[in-house]
């Protein structure tokens, strides 16, 4: 019972850290509030996912997943340029947003800040795909809203410090 409570407390702490990281990235880089919501990310015909690998003190991955509208909005807010659709710049932007969220999230914990390394982003876009993570006993999913856009963050942890 104590172990279960400790795990729940740990999960809550990680979620709060993630919420702060997301808010920090969006407010600093895009000058917009981004807050957690209970809504699930509505599946759109075309979606985009950015994956950042985590290694070292913590093994796993962080995935940012959303529809094309959210991705285009992030791109426009980051760069000041309006893409006319899903293109390399949008994929790059979403990858960078995921990268910064992962960095801000791990940066809160001194052990992870120095001991957990991030991979370069991998971005997948399309209308029919699923991401699987092997050996991920811990999984944390959160949904967020900025302006009128929704996206999700999933954290797969093989082991968490």
């Amino acid at each position: 019972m104590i172990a279960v409570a400790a795990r729940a407390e740990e999960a809550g702490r990680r979620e709060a850290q993630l919420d702060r990281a997301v808010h920090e990235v969006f407010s600093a880089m895009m000058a917009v509030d981004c807050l957690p919501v209970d809504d699930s990310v509505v599946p759109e015909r075309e979606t985009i996912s950015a994956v950042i690998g985590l290694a070292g003190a913590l093994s796993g991955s962080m995935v940012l997943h959303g529809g094309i509208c959210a991705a285009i909005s992030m791109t426009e807010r980051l760069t000041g340029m309006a893409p006319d659709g899903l293109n390399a710049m949008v994929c790059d932007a979403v990858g960078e947003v995921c990268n910064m969220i992962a960095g801000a999230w791990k940066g809160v914990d001194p052990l992870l800040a120095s001991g957990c390394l991030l991979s370069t982003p991998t971005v997948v876009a399309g209308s029919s795909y699923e991401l699987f993570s092997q050996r991920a006993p811990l999984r944390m999913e959160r949904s967020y809203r900025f302006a009128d856009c929704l996206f999700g963050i999933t954290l797969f942890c093989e082991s968490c410090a």
Partner: protein
Amino acid sequence: MPELTVLIVDDSSVMRKIVERALRQAGLDLTRVIEAGSGREALTILARERVQLIVSDINMPVMDGLEFLRQAQSQSLAQGAPVVMITTESGEEHVREALKAGAQGYIRKPFTPDQVRDHVLPLLSPA
């Protein structure tokens, strides 16, 4: 503020645009912006171009920002231009490594234009 040529090194073209935008919003009069997608490309550029400011990411494929900085310093390619690292890595160890490699500034992503201004402008002020 003096006009200046800046070299921005990052494997993400979006991040290079973001950094340029932040530098301009910070009040820098950028005469010329040169972009490099890797440390190796940046070394090639520095061998033929004179710049007044270098802004570099750390985590990049081919050659990371720290190795780029070490080689730029050992080959005297930076020619006195201040180097600022802009990166997601925030651990003290990373900061120490960057400063040891020759960086004069270190900005963690995410960043605001004000943070860029506060870190970069003092490096460009005349002594």
